[in-house]
């Protein structure tokens, strides 16, 4: 069974090739959509069968490595295209292919009528292929291939409608198009990838190999905690993670990535690609456990990003931007979990977040689709009755992300907050708790403004429920959002935390190195749970009151806290700051130094100089052609003299 691992990865590649090469000729939306969704569905089925087999086998027999071919083999470096099927990667694979399949089906409805339909599905399949390479790789190089590949697909898909105008901050504000947003995503990611690459070099130098098993076993055996090299390796890897998973300082691309079609935002920027950083840190848990300083940095950046993004989400007016900042914030939670050593909890939140965030985005997409591309929530309202299925599923997702029991978000978020308190510090818990309140608040601000109340849209729009091909995935995701948390019911509530036990073998080498000070008692755990639920309910209630009944409060608050409001609305001017400090100097320097100085001056000068010196030389040479025969005769005689001289003197 396990040797079918290659099929999981390569079926989407086949889909990409078919749609990419033949899609335009076939020009049948049904066919392109069917092929695109079908391959992902098939991958999901294979992965599910593999999961079942894994579940039925003994714990120490659950990890397999399936080698497809030998990729690089030079000197001391040997890298295979090989896939590691173990508890962690099969879980990620199921998430990627399962949620991916649902989003593919949804896209058949969403992208109907678009002239680039086949191209869209080709890119989506390519993305799934790259993402599967990332999560199933058994070595850093193949993972990096997937890492770069998903960045590429993100670029291609964000800029899918490449000429549309788009509103960005900072660089090119006001004249930007979606392709500028795509470029921003790719370039910011590259900065992170630089960190990843340097880390890979250090790993190879330190451990002599780039395969996960080799590196981790050697690390666990020979490295002591606090080693400087490991500190740098983990820090640089984390830099890569901040790029891919949109943490401080490299989060600026994610809000602009909303320029792409909504299914793209759902798949790439909510459920899968952005979790690549989390997966990578979890996979390298052995290394991180040996670098406590880096763990602290991870946790601090995680919680800061979470709060930072949540504050910005409170004031945004574009439905997708709110969800984008929400994603950044929730990713911060995941990193907080990883940073305090709760690796399994971080992955658990990845799973539940995939369900409800994808659902939120798909629901937003349904709303945008019904409202004919209107994305400003101030211009919505009253959609409850007109789009019942969308409303109900959206409501489920919002409750899940707010963390209301017994929905999935409650269990995963609660686990992270509890571990943040017991394994980290109370400050982590406090900030996380406040952030949970903010999350509930802005989510229900969104729900209220978009769905409830009177209609505030212009009369030429006729919103209606979206077709079944779009609502069925919404319903499935809603069900998953409800029951998805039950795999992680903690022991304090009577469950056995199945997911943590499932992932335990992966992380046991790491948890051994960590000095976990488990400070909490059962009682404080219950207290924390109650407080979390309380602030969530409070946030929901506050949002409903302010935005339903007493909308004048909004006006008064934004008036009296004008500066704060403006700072938040302008995203703390981070884009503008980056633009002034980094982008503009680089562009200017490039222009003056590299372009005018080097390219034009040196290289062109060299080539042109060669040509003009040739010209001058031949100008001199042509004076030999006097046209008078006797001068040529003179030359003959001189030649004769020279030759005779050589012959005579020999």
């Amino acid at each position, binding site marked *: 069974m396990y040797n079918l691992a290659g099929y999981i990865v390569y079926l989407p590649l086949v889909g990409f090739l078919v749609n990419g090469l033949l899609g335009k000729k076939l020009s049948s939306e049904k066919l392109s959509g069917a092929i695109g969704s079908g391959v992902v569905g098939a991958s999901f089925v294979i992965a599910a069968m593999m999961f079942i087999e894994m579940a039925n086998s003994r714990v120490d027999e659950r990890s397999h490595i399936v080698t497809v071919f030998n990729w690089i083999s030079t000197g001391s470096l040997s890298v295979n295209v090989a896939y590691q099927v173990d508890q962690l990667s099969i879980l990620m694979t199921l998430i990627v292919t399962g949620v991916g399949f649902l989003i593919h089906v949804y896209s058949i409805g969403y992208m109907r009528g678009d002239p680039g339909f086949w191209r869209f599905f080709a890119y989506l399949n390519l993305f799934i292929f790259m993402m599967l390479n990332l999560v199933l790789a058994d070595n850093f190089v193949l993972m990096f291939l997937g890492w770069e590949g998903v960045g590429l697909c993100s670029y291609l898909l964000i800029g899918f409608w490449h000429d549309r105008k788009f509103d960005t901050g900072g660089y090119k504000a006001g004249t930007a198009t979606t392709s500028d947003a795509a470029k921003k995503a790719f370039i910011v990611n590259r900065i992170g990838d630089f960190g990843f690459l340097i880390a890979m070099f250090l790993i190879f130098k330190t451990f002599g190999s780039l395969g996960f098993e080799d590196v981790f076993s050697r690390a666990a055996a020979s490295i002591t905690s606090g080693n400087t090299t490991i500190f740098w390796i983990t820090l640089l890897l984390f830099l890569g993670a901040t790029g891919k998973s949109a943490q401080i300082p490299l989060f600026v691309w994610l809000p602009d990535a909303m320029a792409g079609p909504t299914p793209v935002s759902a798949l790439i920027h909510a459920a899968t690609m952005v979790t690549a950083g989390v997966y990578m840190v979890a996979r390298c848990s052995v290394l991180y456990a040996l670098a406590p300083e880096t763990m602290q940095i991870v946790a601090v950046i995680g919680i800061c990003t979470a709060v930072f993004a949540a504050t910005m989400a409170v004031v945004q007016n574009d439905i997708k931007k709110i969800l984008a900042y929400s994603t950044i914030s929730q990713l911060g939670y995941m990193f907080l979990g990883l940073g305090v050593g709760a690796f399994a909890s971080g992955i658990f939140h990845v799973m539940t977040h995939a369900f409800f965030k994808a659902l939120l985005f798909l629901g937003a997409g349904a709303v945008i689709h019904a409202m004919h591309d209107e994305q400003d929530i101030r211009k919505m309202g009253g959609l409850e009755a007109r789009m019942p299925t969308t409303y109900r599923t959206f409501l489920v997702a919002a409750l899940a992300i707010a963390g209301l029991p017994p929905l999935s978000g409650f269990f995963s978020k609660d686990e992270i907050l509890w571990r943040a308190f017991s394994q980290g510090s109370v400050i982590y818990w406090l900030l996380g708790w406040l952030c949970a309140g903010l999350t509930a608040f802005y989510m229900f601000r969104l729900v209220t403004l978009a769905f409830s109340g009177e209609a505030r849209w212009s009369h030429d729009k006729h919103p209606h429920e979206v077709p079944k091909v779009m609502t069925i995935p919404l319903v499935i995701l809603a069900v998953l959002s409800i029951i998805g948390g039950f795999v992680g019911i903690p022991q304090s509530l009577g469950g056995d935390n199945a997911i943590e036990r499932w992932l335990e073998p992966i992380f046991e080498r790491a948890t051994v190195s960590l000095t976990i000070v488990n400070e909490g008692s059962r009682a404080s755990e219950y207290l924390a749970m109650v407080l979390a639920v309380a602030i969530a309910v409070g946030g929901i209630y506050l949002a409903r009151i302010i935005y339903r009944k007493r909308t004048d409060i909004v006006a008064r608050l934004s008036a009296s806290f004008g500066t704060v409001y403006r700072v938040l609305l302008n995203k703390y001017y981070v884009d503008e700051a980056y633009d002034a400090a980094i982008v503009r100097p680089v562009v200017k320097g490039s222009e003056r130094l590299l372009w005018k100085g080097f390219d034009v001056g040196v290289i062109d000068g060299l080539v042109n100089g060669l040509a003009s010196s040739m010209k001058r030389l031949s100008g001199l040479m*042509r*004076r030999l*052609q*006097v*046209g*008078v*025969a*006797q001068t040529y*005769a*003179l030359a003959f*005689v001189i030649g004769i003299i020279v030759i005779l001289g050589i012959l005579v003197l020999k």
Partner: protein
Amino acid sequence: MTVASPGVPLNYYLTLGAILFSIGVVGVLTRRNAIIVFMSIELMLNSVNLTLVVFSSYLGNSTGQILVFFVMAVAAAEAAVGLAIIIALFRNKQTVNIDEINIMKW
């Protein structure tokens, strides 16, 4: 007529040939009239003929004389064609002075 020893040494003939050749060179480089230049070239050819005949005679090999035969035939052909060219040139430019014929100048 048969020659009784001692005859003229070979080198004397060769010297004569060399002198005639260099006089021909002077003529080619110095004169402006194209026909005179031609005649100087003929002089040079003749000096070579002399050298060939001398060697043929002193070495007892008839190859040199055969070669002289061919040289003469070719020289005749070349003189004819060259003079035809000069006539054609004269028709166009009304002069046979070489330095006035420089259309092929850069």
